């Protein structure tokens, strides 16, 4: 179907793929991007929060054109018990700035816009095409791809794998292993539509301001997981995710957990009267630094979720995808400019750029967190939230009990549940992994 040869083939039109394709095409490289969905974004699922800095580095004036929902001025972290939440809430009017830092977006709309920008730079984007396999030469160098459309191999100097968390091409070619159940979370999400005035009144917002709730605690039934509520312009994204390994050994269904979360007395009033228009599910890489596979080889690089580049602690993924895609594009451009081969040795430049960026530095910082949270999920997600709720209730309810006795009861409850050694141990382990 396509006779010509490309400088680069990009697999996938998500954040990483679009960043890579835009970076290379805007520097004059001949780029082909292949996407299996009907249109770019039709297979992509995210919460979704967009981090402006990482988009600006690719499209500086994106705010003028991109479909953005709300800029975030408020963040709520909620620790949930069955009927209560204990919250940490941060709101800052300085987030109402000329160039806001974070926005909510609707992925399929944003990705469509992003793809138009990629095409405007001269990249050829072909949708409704699933790439079936990578094609290698006799020496194992990747030289092209074969798709499910008629026609033979499409050749390129380098293949940029931005194929998402499932990354079938890379795993089938033996470039990396399938993620393990304890290293990916399954998240389910619904889009709840409400008039914008209703959303603004319920979340105390004005105009395009937005708010985020991130919730953890008994809602995940002792599994490593969390729930979220994001305000879009005329809709609210509500979701819930837990590690796949936890789901496999637990009796709950993902949609059952989502229903319980939506019906929590702290969440339910926010969604009252909404119309649900979509239900989605997606895997999120959660294994962190220790699960990052080989990132480059002869004739290929891998970016974004396919490379497990996700910061589970800060719930950041799209910015790591955008940055890794951009850096892969820059590395390939540099190698091409020097008229050198897309060999493993030369493509190591991509890893070098990634190591120097926040992507690898952040993931390295939290390298011990995923395993810690997984191993101690019963304590961190079930025991402590209940203890904290009880302590708050004890603190606030006025019933004639002397305060000294209330305090003793609260401390006794913590010690009974975890003993002093457990309490100090949990705090120490958390602090050390956070460092």
């Amino acid at each position, binding site marked *: 179907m396509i006779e010509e040869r490309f400088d680069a083939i990009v697999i996938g039109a998500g954040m990483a793929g679009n960043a890579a394709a835009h970076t290379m095409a805007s520097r004059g490289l001949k780029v082909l991007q292949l996407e*299996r969905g*009907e249109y770019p974004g039709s*297979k992509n699922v995210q919460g979704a929060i967009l981090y402006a800095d990482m988009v600006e580095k690719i499209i500086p004036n994106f705010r003028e054109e991109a479909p953005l929902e709300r800029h975030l001025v408020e963040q709520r972290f909620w620790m949930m018990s069955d009927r209560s939440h204990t919250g940490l809430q941060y709101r800052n009017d300085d987030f109402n700035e000329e160039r806001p830092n974070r926005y909510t977006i609707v992925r399929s709309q944003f990705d469509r816009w992003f793809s138009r920008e990629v095409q405007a730079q001269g990249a050829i984007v072909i949708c409704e095409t699933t790439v079936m396999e990578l094609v290698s030469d006799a020496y194992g160098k990747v030289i092209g791809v074969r798709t499910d459309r008629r026609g033979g191999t499409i050749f390129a100097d380098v293949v940029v794998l931005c194929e998402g968390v*499932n990354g079938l091409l890379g795993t089938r070619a033996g470039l990396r292993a399938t993620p393990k159940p304890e290293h990916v979370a399954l998240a389910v999400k619904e889009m709840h539509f409400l008039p914008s005035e209703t959303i603004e009144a319920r979340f105390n917002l004005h105009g395009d301001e937005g708010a985020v709730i991130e919730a953890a605690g008994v809602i995940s039934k002792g599994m490593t997981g969390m729930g979220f509520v994001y305000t879009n312009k005329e809709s609210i994204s509500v979701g819930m995710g837990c590690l796949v390994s936890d*789901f496999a050994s637990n009796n709950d269904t993902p949609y059952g957990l989502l229903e319980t979360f939506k019906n929590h007395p702290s969440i339910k009033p926010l969604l009252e009267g909404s119309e*649900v228009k*979509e239900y*989605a599910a997606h895997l999120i890489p959660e294994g962190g630094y220790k699960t990052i596979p080989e990132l480059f080889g002869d004739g290929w690089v891998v970016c974004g979720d396919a490379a497990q580049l996700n910061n589970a602690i800060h719930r950041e993924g799209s910015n790591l995808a955008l940055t890794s895609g951009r850096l892969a594009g820059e590395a390939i451009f540099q190698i091409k400019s020097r008229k050198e081969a897309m060999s493993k040795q030369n493509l190591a430049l991509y890893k070098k750029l990634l190591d120097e960026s926040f992507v690898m530095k952040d993931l390295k910082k939290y390298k011990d967190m995923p395993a810690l949270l997984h191993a101690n999920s019963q304590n961190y997600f079930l025991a402590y939230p209940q203890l904290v709720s009880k302590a708050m209730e004890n603190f606030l309810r006025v019933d004639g009990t002397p305060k000294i006795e209330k305090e003793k009861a609260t401390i006794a409850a913590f010690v009974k549940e975890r003993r002093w050694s457990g309490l100090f141990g949990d705090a120490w382990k958390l602090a050390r992994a956070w460092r």
Partner: protein
Amino acid sequence: MALAARVEEKLYQNRYIVDAGKPHIAIRPHEKPSENLLAMTRVCPAGCYSETSSGQVEIAPDGCLECGTCRVLCEASGDITWNYPRGGFGVLFKFG
């Protein structure tokens, strides 16, 4: 269970182009399902997996959300084969 019944209602909101007669996930014939394969009857977010009266696990992937959970749990053991649907087919997220 009331909640389990509701997953069909959730899927009803979604847009799909089903590749009729070409399911992208297949289960290896078995007499007794493995633990992970049986778990899919609960864990699949689209409720595609179900247990037959004779104790085998079967799949109807029309409502598949292409998340890959079953692939992560059941592909390595050979319990299932998992492919992406043909280009253009499968779930098409309006919002994503």
